[in-house]
């Protein structure tokens, strides 16, 4: 039984990634959005390297937050519209596991590309090289948590009016802790302090989210399909 569930878990991830590849443009659009938002900041606050160095970590984190949030609504929306969601709920596997599979696939197709492109953007923003490794670790710990928390919001807004704006209202306040610790981790290593405490908290948030979020998302999905 457990073995079959695991099989379904990986099959689902495979399906989601395949869908993302076939649609292609979706993931690219999110990465492009990420790059463009980052580029807006030097144009708006001025190109002085000093200012950019100081706020580079914050800019990258805020842009990553917005990109993940923007990609969130497609997590369950298309399945909800074409009826796949009802089949997934009726499946013998626990819905929590299915939600987790979809979230993992979502992170692989949106969070992961963002992490890969982020050093290039840090270069644009004149970030000190001492912050690069911390930025990568913090994003690797933080973006999965964003996907997990965002999945709750994406499940809650299914079928709502003006769901896009609503999603940002629900999800952004819950993203704030991740933003705070993600930025302060990078800032700590830029000022030659240990970034370990912040990274540990980010790791803790990730583990707590991994356990609790699929449960809440599954509850939200069940009531959406009722």
């Amino acid at each position: 039984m457990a073995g079959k569930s695991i099989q379904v878990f990986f099959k689902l991830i495979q399906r989601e990634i395949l869908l993302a590849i076939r649609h292609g443009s979706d993931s690219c659009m999110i990465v492009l959005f990420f790059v463009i938002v980052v580029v807006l900041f030097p144009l708006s606050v001025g190109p002085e390297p000093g200012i950019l160095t100081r706020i580079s970590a914050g800019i990258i984190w805020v842009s990553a937050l917005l990109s993940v949030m923007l990609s969130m609504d497609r997590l369950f929306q298309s399945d909800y519209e074409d009826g796949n969601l009802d089949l997934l709920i009726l499946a013998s596997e626990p819905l929590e596991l299915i939600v987790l599979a979809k979230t993992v696939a979502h992170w692989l197709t949106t969070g992961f590309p963002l992490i890969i492109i982020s050093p290039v953007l840090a270069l644009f923003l004149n970030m000190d090289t001492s912050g690069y490794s911390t930025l990568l670790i913090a994003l690797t710990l933080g973006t999965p948590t964003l996907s997990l928390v965002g999945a709750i919001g994406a499940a809650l807004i299914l079928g709502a009016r003006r769901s896009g704006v609503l999603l940002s209202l629900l999800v952004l306040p819950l993203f704030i802790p991740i933003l705070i610790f993600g930025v302060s981790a990078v800032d700590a290593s830029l000022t030659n302090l240990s970034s370990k405490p912040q990274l540990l908290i980010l790791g803790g948030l990730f583990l707590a989210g991994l356990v609790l979020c699929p449960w809440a998302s599954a509850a939200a999905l069940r009531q959406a399909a009722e």
Partner: protein
Amino acid sequence: MFNYFANPVRFLRLTSKLQPITMFVASVTIGLGLYYGLVKSPPDYQQSETVRIMYVHVPAAWMAMFCYVAIACSSAVALIWRHMLANIIAKSTAPIGASFTFLALATGSLWGKPMWGTWWVWDARLTSVLILFFLYLGYMVLYNAFDDQSRGARAAAILSIVGVINVPIIKFSVDWWNTLHQPASVIKMDGPSIHPSMLTPLILMAVGYTALYFWLLFVRTRAELNANKVRMMSIQQVET
């Protein structure tokens, strides 16, 4: 007891008696509390007269958290036992709680200007209360975002239970982080560390705010129930 009062008719009968009582308690204790707080209590030796803002601010912040927990609890009851009344109580609590949160933020800001020299600082307590305010707003928006009322009620209930994680963060933010906002001085293990002349108006205001909350809650819930009744009756009229 839950199941007993989940019956709207019994609830209406009970609250019709409780409504004037809570109104009376609220007006008397808030009146007395304001008199003791603004006139009788001594000015602080460091903050002078500014300390009087505390009597409005601290109970409001307590109520902000209390109301959120009330929403989360009645949402849980609504999800588990499917009592319609629990949804209505959660829905009616949200604007009251949001108002208390706004009051706490606004009075804190007014106090911060003369004391800290700034309207706003990004410390842990202030930020987490601001998040609480956003959670209230998100809850209210989500509740009304669906064409199907019961769908909105259930989605908002799940959101409120997820957001309850913020309440302990608010409570302990002053202990976990070394911040500008002062730590708790009333609700402590070894008793309050505040002089009785200041504690009396504070307690009076807290009791008054709680009574005010229940009074407003009863008014709102009864209005909501009656509105539902009117809706049902007009539907019946159309059908016949």
